[in-house]
């Protein structure tokens, strides 16, 4: 199975790899997947509380090339978006952008779940009502 150019590009030059300080109240962390399933994604956002805008996003992913590319793309998309805008990111947007084949759709689902998880973590840390839960796929 050949990978798309975009998956290869994100895999070879992943964007925003790293770790944010999860003890900060402005940082939200989403950790999804499980080692037994062969995919674990950790996606973190840092939010400017005055504007509810995501000013930084980082990820680390244990998984195949498509999982790494999906999380790299997600962090790129998140930066500069408001929480409200970020919640509209759908896994199928990732599938389309990366041209993921059907067997790799779960990678995009994981990325969407990680985004929602990170936002929910930020919101609950700051006493904000959680607006969306990770979908149960």
């Amino acid at each position, binding site marked *: *199975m050949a990978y798309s150019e975009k998956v290869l590009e994100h*895999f070879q030059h992943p964007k925003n790899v790293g770790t944010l300080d999860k003890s900060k109240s402005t940082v939200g962390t989403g*950790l999804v997947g499980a*080692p037994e399933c062969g995919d*674990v994604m*950790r996606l973190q956002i840092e939010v400017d509380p005055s504007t509810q805008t995501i000013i930084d996003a980082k990820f680390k992913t*244990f998984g*195949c090339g498509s999982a790494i590319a999906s999380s790299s793309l997600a962090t790129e998309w998140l930066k500069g978006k408001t929480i409200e805008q970020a919640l509209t990111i759908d896994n199928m947007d990732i599938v389309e952008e990366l041209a993921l084949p059907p067997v790799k759709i*779960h990678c995009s689902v994981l990325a969407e779940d990680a985004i929602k998880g990170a936002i929910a973590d930020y919101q609950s840390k700051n006493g904000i009502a959680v607006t969306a839960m990770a979908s149960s796929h």
Partner: protein
Amino acid sequence: MIKEPMRVYLDNNSTTPCDPRVVDTMVPYFYQKPGNSASRNHPFGWEAEEGVDYAREQIAALLKVDPKEIIFTSGATESDNLAIKGVFEMYRSKGNHIITVTTEHKAVLDTCDKLTEAGAEITYLKVAEDGLIDLAELEAAIKSTTILVSVMWANNETGVIQPMKEIGNICDKHGVLFMSDATQAVGKMPTYPKEIGVHLMAFTSHKMYGPKGVGALYVSRKSPRVKVTAQMDGGGHERGMRSGTLNVPGIVGFGKAAEIARLEMHADAERLKKLRDRLEHELTSRLEECYINGNVDHRMPHVTNISFKHVEGEGLMMTFNQNIAVSSGSACTSASLEPSYVLVALGLGDDLAHSSIRFSLGRFTTDEEVDFVVDKLVAGVNHMRDLSPIWEMYKEGVDLSNVQWSEH
């Protein structure tokens, strides 16, 4: 000097390159000698038959058996099917119980599974952490209705070699037929069914530097005389056990591959063991948290299966797969998301199974290729660990078994 871009093939357990000497012997049989070996009344048929007969002798010599005991097929999958289904149908009146092992190839497991629909009872023996079966468990599983024990000679994923002689003795003692899928072993190590007590043995040409599309089943003709019910009906070729026009060029090549193997396998094995050991030593000394899967004292000299903890196998392969061909026990490409059942049967956690890479060296593997692979692997594993959240957690001392993972 290494040519760029270098391409290194360490996936010889999937298939081997066809030895150029084999190709040379095959070529005349495509055009100059086009006959059907079953055509008895003209020289085209005679010379094709001569080619097939000679190949049968070459293969028989490799196994130290009678040429009449070799049945040509399309490959090991067909041979496994013919042996197991053929024995079941032929000896149905004697019993319906077959014993096999959880780490067998799918050609054996799925065939056995299919036979349950026809009334077969199958016992699947478990393996220990090192991949070996428990002989006492095997003996205890044999009962009055047992007609066949099927145990693979060497495992395709780990290279682990089962205690064949001991299994043969147990089968002999209880008067049960012993069949072996020896696909990975034949041509790479001594496989003499008569010395071991194997009555049926499946193997294929393309794992021993011959062409694809041709395999064989050894069927013992003397003490005991074994018969299998044909699974392919037609012209009655191969003593009635496997109808169908013979793949003459393929069989001629298979024969040559067997002859080369007989003469060179010991030297090949000795050289490859050194290379494999170097590969293993370099990787495990330059990278932390690597685990070799399977019994290291009872395995094929050209194979190693290593888990690189907290790195997903398919992702790791992507770091070097433009240059290096290996195979992974991770099943991220399959819809099931289930990792290798062979490694899981060894008791590996799913996480370590997802992190495994199989390296299978071959006759054409060179020292510099192995050095190249080591460097690429070390860089790839380090890259993937930099990206891995569970590696980071592990380094921070987090007990991953206590983490509440989200179901997915």
